């Protein structure tokens, strides 16, 4: 179980209908690759975020598979068109089965 995992999201509070907005997300996570060994030569088990998704009003925006080569504290920046007011929902899936969630609402105007 990874310690100190905390998701962070930055979404504009409002936008005009049809606007393309930039979304930034960051989750603090060690992203242990499984390739390293500890001081005694034993392999350190893999422990990474393996999937990240973003949905807007139930409709999928982005769905990413993460691999062990991705560095600690994975950062995603992507764009989305906002057709209407609603809520962005962000979900990160951990190797250990944990699911981390965050949500941000956006208004039109």
């Amino acid at each position, binding site marked *: 179980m990874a310690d*100190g995992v*905390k998701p*962070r999201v*930055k979404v504009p509070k409002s936008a005009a209908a049809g606007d*393309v907005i930039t979304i*930034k997300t*960051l989750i*603090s996570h060690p992203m242990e690759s499984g390739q390293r060994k500890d001081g005694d030569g034993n392999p350190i088990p893999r422990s990474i975020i393996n999937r990240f998704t*973003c949905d*807007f009003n139930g*409709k*999928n*925006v*982005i769905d*990413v598979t993460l691999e062990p080569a*991705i*560095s*600690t*504290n*994975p*950062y*995603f*920046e*992507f*764009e*989305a*068109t*906002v*057709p209407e007011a609603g809520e962005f929902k962000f979900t990160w899936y951990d190797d250990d089965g944990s699911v981390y969630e965050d949500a941000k609402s956006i208004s039109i105007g």
Partner: protein
Amino acid sequence: MKFKAMTALAGALAISAVGAANADPVDDTLVINDEIEMTVKTAAPEHMEYVDEVMSGWMFRNDDTRDMERDDFDNPGMLGVEAAIEAWDTVEGTAGKACSDCHGAIDEDQMVGVKPVYPKWNEAAGEVWTIEMAMNSCRTEQMGAEAWGYNSDDMINMSALMSYVSRGLPVNVAIDGPAAETWEQGKEIYYTRYGQLELACANCHEDNYGNMIRADHLSQGQINGFPTYRLKNAKLNGIHNRFKGCIRDTRAEPFGIGSPEFVALELYVTSRGNGLSVEGPSVRN
């Protein structure tokens, strides 16, 4: 790492331009969060004999790295600051106190202006103290808690928080009075050649800033941005650890982290940045 992806709703894939490294230092200004105006270039303090203008290490980094520091969300060093804000309110030790019991909640701004004057002379101890030494004294004397390791994550994070609350204020360490002797010692170290490569700090950071050292750009070695988030090891780095790395690279035996020699060197090098903004936690390669 920036990762841009096409989305179901997005119109087009935005590709960030790859910043070409031009002549150093760059002609650029740093405003953090569109709010805090930083002094990254200013007239050298009077005591410096061979340099007219001092520049933050930020000026020597490439476009992408500089951009990461413009917004706190993009600055991974802020993770350390967040951890320290939690530690600030955490009760530890036999006295049952947290930092905030004496120094107030962090947003009461009582700690603003503390970092820019460190390292400074401590009358009771009769020596120059770095902010790390002051924090450990707080822990052992006031809180009855165990001292933090000088280069531990807890220590570096708290040091980053102290820097964060004073961000934008000018570095202003005293080099006269009782601190003068330590400052002279630091200056001596700065200009002494060490190691098999026989390099002094000055050989790279005074004589050759703006030039390449193998694949990297030599800065003036300013430390106003410490603790620094380094992309190479993906964590916040303390200043003594950085000194150690530099001296190791001259193939010398480094002084110890937290040693009197490094405290003196820290005072001297900090004083070379008097007038630059406190910039920590900064982002470097």
